């Protein structure tokens, strides 16, 4: 179990300080794939940085800490203070862009074994690495190549191999397949799932693609403007969400075979530079009331394992029904007055 206790992560900039993650308290069970979703700027990547313990200027932790539920070699519990010494061994990171994460002028095999633990037994480790990359569907010779000689998909497999070689308990993946084509994306995601099933580790996956979340995650965290707005099992997130933002996010894009007209989510999140009063989603929310603009809703467990930060969580089901009863694509396609343009609202 990973426990986050009131995490506040702050960026210090020329304009002053801004909280990119503002009071996140969570418990993440072991051996699950957990997805983190939200619009750009909602704090999902910053939360990943905090989880990885990669905290340095301009990012700082103003409050809270992470308890990873692990014990290090000296028998001490692993927390934010000492997570850095567990990098690769117990926690690893798969970045979005493999091209800017691998050293372009060093062969991949040398990057694989370039740390003190392999001193004196590099040959032995390299043989294991070759076996391992073969298991991941790469030719063993591929580690002799330079990064630019491999395709994007192969490089991303190398990144997965590096992140999983020591069978860490926790793997953080920040948009691991965004730069890839759908065909390659599917193979990488299935590879990650296979490895997770075998190694029983916890994967935290950031993606803006709700389809990716639906396909591979067990639980999901929805973030909006530096706050957690909903946290639940993936099936509940999609079938019975308890926050209007989650509902609108999962319904914002069309799917093949679905003939409903879609309207997206007009407007933009509030600027975090301004002091926040009430619910941060209120300005874009179709069911917001005066209470929402004055009183901030706390993250509440409405059903077992299903958390939502909405005063009107009970009304989301009705909102979902009304959205599903909306006009079909063929009704609006030739009638611009019925097309849900929302151009005025999207400022």
């Amino acid at each position: 179990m990973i426990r986050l206790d009131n995490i506040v992560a702050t960026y210090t900039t020329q304009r002053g300080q801004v909280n990119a993650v503002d009071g996140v308290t969570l418990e993440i069970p072991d051996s699950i794939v957990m997805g983190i979703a939200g619009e750009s700027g909602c704090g999902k990547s910053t939360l990943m940085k905090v989880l990885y313990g990669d905290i340095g200027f301009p990012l700082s932790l103003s409050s809270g800490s992470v308890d990873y539920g692990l014990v290090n070699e000296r028998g001490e519990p692993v927390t934010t203070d000492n997570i850095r010494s567990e990098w690769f061994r117990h926690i690893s990171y798969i970045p979005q862009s493999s091209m800017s994460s691998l050293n372009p002028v060093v062969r991949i095999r040398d990057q694989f074994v370039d740390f003190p633990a392999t001193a004196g037994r590099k040959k032995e480790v390299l043989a294991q690495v070759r076996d391992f990359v073969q298991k991941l569907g790469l030719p063993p010779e591929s580690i002799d190549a330079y990064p630019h000689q491999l395709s994007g998909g192969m490089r991303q497999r190398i990144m997965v191999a590096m992140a999983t070689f020591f069978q860490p308990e926790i793997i953080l993946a920040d948009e691991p397949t965004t730069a890839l084509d759908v065909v390659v994306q599917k193979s990488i995601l299935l590879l990650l799932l296979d490895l997770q099933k075998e190694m029983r580790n916890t994967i935290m996956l950031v993606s803006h693609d709700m389809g990716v979340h639906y396909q591979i995650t067990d639980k999901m965290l929805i973030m909006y403007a530096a706050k957690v707005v909903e946290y639940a099992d993936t099936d509940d997130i999609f079938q019975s969400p308890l926050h209007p933002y989650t509902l609108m996010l999962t319904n914002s894009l069309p799917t093949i075979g679905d003939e409903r007209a879609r309207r997206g989510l007009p407007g933009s999140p509030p600027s975090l530079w301004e002091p926040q009063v009430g619910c941060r989603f209120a300005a874009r929310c179709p069911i917001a009331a005066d209470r929402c603009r004055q009183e901030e809703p706390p993250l509440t467990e409405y059903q077992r394992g299903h958390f939502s930060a909405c005063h009107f969580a009970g009304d989301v089901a009705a909102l979902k029904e009304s959205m599903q009863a909306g006009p079909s694509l063929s009704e609006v396609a030739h009638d611009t007055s019925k097309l849900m343009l929302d151009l005025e609202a999207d400022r």
Partner: protein
Amino acid sequence: MNTILKTQGLNKVYSLGSFPRTIKVQALDDINLDIESDQPVIVSLVGESGSGKTTLAKVILRLVQPSSGAVTVAGHTVAGKGTRPNHNEFLRTVQPIFQNPFEAFSQHRTVDSYLRETAERVGKLHKDAAIQAVEEALAAVGLQYSDVRGKYPNQFSGGELQRASVARALIPRPQLIVADEPVSMIDASRRMIIINLFMALKEEYRTSFLYITHDLATAYYISDYIAVMNKGRIVEFGDAKQVLSQPQHEYTQLLLDSIPRLNSRWVERRNPTTG
């Protein structure tokens, strides 16, 4: 029936590297498209990166000279060896919208100066009439001239700036707008606003769109026709709903199977709360 877009035996070979180790890459391999309709249409061009879809867009926009073949848009031959269409007439026939609006507009110029210049040079309008045309085009995309005037690109959000670039493309009232990945830089939650706008403009401005994307779901949503490209060839072409619900070519099937859908899973997931 009017010909909206026609390509005949279009080829493009890029030569990479220098002698004696030149590598030839066939980016377009005998592309024959013939789209005829009395009504304006939205045609999607889908495929993986490297499939040649951007090269095809560039050939239609005269940014890349084809190795052989010709392109006709609404009766005007726009590209092909030796084709030299009147520049202004070409710009009144085809207009582009690019992927990243922040790169399409210079950071050192105001956005409205681009719009006014398009109206003056391509539309051949005098000052007042040009401003009126700009106002009209901006209103069509839900922006007001007074809000845009004097602003630089960095003062807009991505969605607003992309709408301004749609407005710019509308000013010459082109027959065809070539939109290369127009929504991939825009946050997923707000993409549909631009997509719905394309559908509205098709009806109001009678403009056809060539919508280039790797996202099959939005292609399914807006297109009348779809062309699936793979390795420089068009492997499947037809009615968009039909191609995507009953794909005939195995490459289209592979693409469709690989989309992370919201209704059926690749592998079963367990329920973490109840076990």
